[in-house]
């Protein structure tokens, strides 16, 4: 787990699913150049659960966008699952996002007026899975996140926690190399948030690599490792000695009403 700048074009370690070398990103705002990332070298092993932390402006979002192949670095290398994605064009990056990355957003980003099942099937539309297999795959992942009984519900008919589960199912449907979660509990009350973290830990235990951006140091400690960013650089990168067990924490929380809407649940838990 090196943090120092390394020479570009190092061959990736075989067990590292994410490997960056001296990753840099700068923008031109007006006539000023803003350096969002100033040389980041991070390796994330397959099956790890990593929290990315840092105040706003620290470069953690930029780093996540690069790791998620939503943006391309100004300089440096990035290997994802053995592929040097920093050399790929726009269409190839779209394919990588489709096949190797599962996104989970703070605000869920589900399509309104569209059922949970259809929302989960969305990434399959842009991939090679033949149409007749799509429904089965989507049903399987919805079952995996515990929503087998709510596949025909639209987002408006689901609670915040359930909506986030649909989003996680959508992220998993193409069997990605990494699950990339950006403040996944940010829009949820404490209890529902912990429920989502239970799901993340379960998924992680079954072998899925999870990378989670959060500004909440409490949430971050559910992961095995925390990488802290400041001013475009990695400042600390340390393993969590004893990650919080989400299931145990959930048991300690006061019992709420089931599936309460977000606003009420927040009141109940505060």
């Amino acid at each position, binding site marked *: 787990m090196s943090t120092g700048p390394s020479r570009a074009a190092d061959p990736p370690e075989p067990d590292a699913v994410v490997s960056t070398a001296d990753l840099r990103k700068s923008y031109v705002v007006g006539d000023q150049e803003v350096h969002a990332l100033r040389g980041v070298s991070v390796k994330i092993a397959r099956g790890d659960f990593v929290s990315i932390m840092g105040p706003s402006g620290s470069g953690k979002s930029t780093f996540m*966008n690069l790791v*998620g192949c*939503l*943006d391309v670095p100004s300089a440096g290398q990035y290997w994802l699952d053995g592929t040097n994605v920093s050399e790929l064009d*726009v*269409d190839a990056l*779209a*394919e990588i*996002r*489709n*096949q190797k990355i599962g*996104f989970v*957003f703070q605000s869920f*980003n589900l*399509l*309104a*007026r*569209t059922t949970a099942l259809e929302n989960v099937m*969305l*990434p399959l*539309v*842009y*991939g090679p899975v033949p*149409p007749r297999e799509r429904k089965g795959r989507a049903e399987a992942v919805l079952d995996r996140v515990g929503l087998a009984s709510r596949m025909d519900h639209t987002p408006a008919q689901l609670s915040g926690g359930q909506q986030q589960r649909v989003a996680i199912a*959508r992220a998993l449907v*193409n069997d990605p190399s990494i699950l990339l979660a950006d403040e996944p509990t940010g829009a949820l009350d404490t209890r529902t948030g912990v429920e989502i973290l239970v799901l993340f830990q379960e998924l992680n235990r079954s072998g899925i690599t999870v990378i989670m951006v959060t500004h909440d140091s409490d949430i971050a400690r559910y992961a095995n490792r925390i990488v802290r960013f400041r001013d475009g650089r990695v400042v600390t990168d340390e393993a969590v000695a004893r990650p919080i067990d989400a299931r145990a924490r959930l048991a300690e929380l006061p019992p709420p009403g089931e599936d309460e809407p977000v606003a009420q649940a927040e009141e109940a838990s505060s």
Partner: protein
Amino acid sequence: MKLSDCVRASVSSLRANVLRSILTTLGIIIGVGAVIAMVSIGAGAQSRVEDSIQRLGANLIMVMPGSQQQGGVNLGAGSRPSLSESDAVAIETRLDTIAIAAPSVRGNGQIIAGNLNWYTGIQGVTPGFFLAREWQLLDGREMTDQDVRRATKTAWLGYSVYTQLFPDQDGIGQTIRISRTPFEVAGVLAPKGQSGFGQDQDDVVFVPISTAKKRVLGRRSSFRGDDVQQIYLKVVSAEYVDIAEVQVAELLRELHQLAPGQEDDFQIRNMASFLEARAESQAVMTFLLAAVASVSLVVGGIGIMNIMLVSVTERTREIGLRLAVGAKRRDIRFQFLIEALMLSMIGGLIGVVAGIASATAIAVFGSWDVLLQPGSILLAFGFSAATGVFFGYYPAYMASQLNPIEALRHE
């Protein structure tokens, strides 16, 4: 991304805003409907004119005597008896472009058959007249040259006259009286219907020209010997009509020994070209109306572009999400293009129905001649689809160029 996925996504987004979708397509509906209705009306008018020309006799030129001036008073067309049967013979024999030259005289008279009578036009003609005007015989026998030579007292009745005088019996071989002279009814002519000017062409009786002069109209002083009132000319084919007119004029000037600079003592009228000119002005009108209608198609297209741009802005997050989960730029472009295309094609389809309905309504309630043109329907529909693609491309391109990071952050 497959076409079916695209169509499904488009349908669901169009259904999410049903009212807006319908209002958006209204321009296309009106445009397509108006184009179809206008072209149908134009085609109807055109076919009516062609019908009239056909009834008049194709490639027909009429020659009439010129006007007479007496002390500065112009007595109008036909007042000078300057055309003769020999003119007709000369035209037919000397001009290759003229197939038939049929002289005729005309007057009016009371016709009596049994206890029925009818006042109508009486026309003295030669057998060539019926050929020139392409007038078929319904019953009886044809007029022959012998009838003319012998000035037989035989008559051929127009269909209207026949039905007036013989409402419920066979009139062929019966005797009728024209100006107190008994005539034998030799034949009935097939109905011609109204002329291009709304006259009943069947309200007429034909007799041999010689008989007409001697027995029917002869007592009036204006008809002497060889004089005729009209010569019908049939040109061999349509492309020679203009040349024939010039040749006939030259020949008549020569026959009438007119000095250069002297005014023609005859008039040449080309009825078909007159009707065609009228048809042409109608066609121009139709074209203008169709052009105005297609402007509405373009306006409709702009409406689609406007709504698609709104839709792209509204759905920025959706676009961002689709890009994040692996949509390529061309997938996004394709999706929005399909959506615009579907909008315009649905509008086009409704427009086709509206156009056919309004054309039919105009035909029924306005009693206009309307002829639906399958070609124009296809063209209008195709144009509406093309409008969708043309005006949908820019919004679709805008959508495809969105930055996924910013799109996902869009509120």
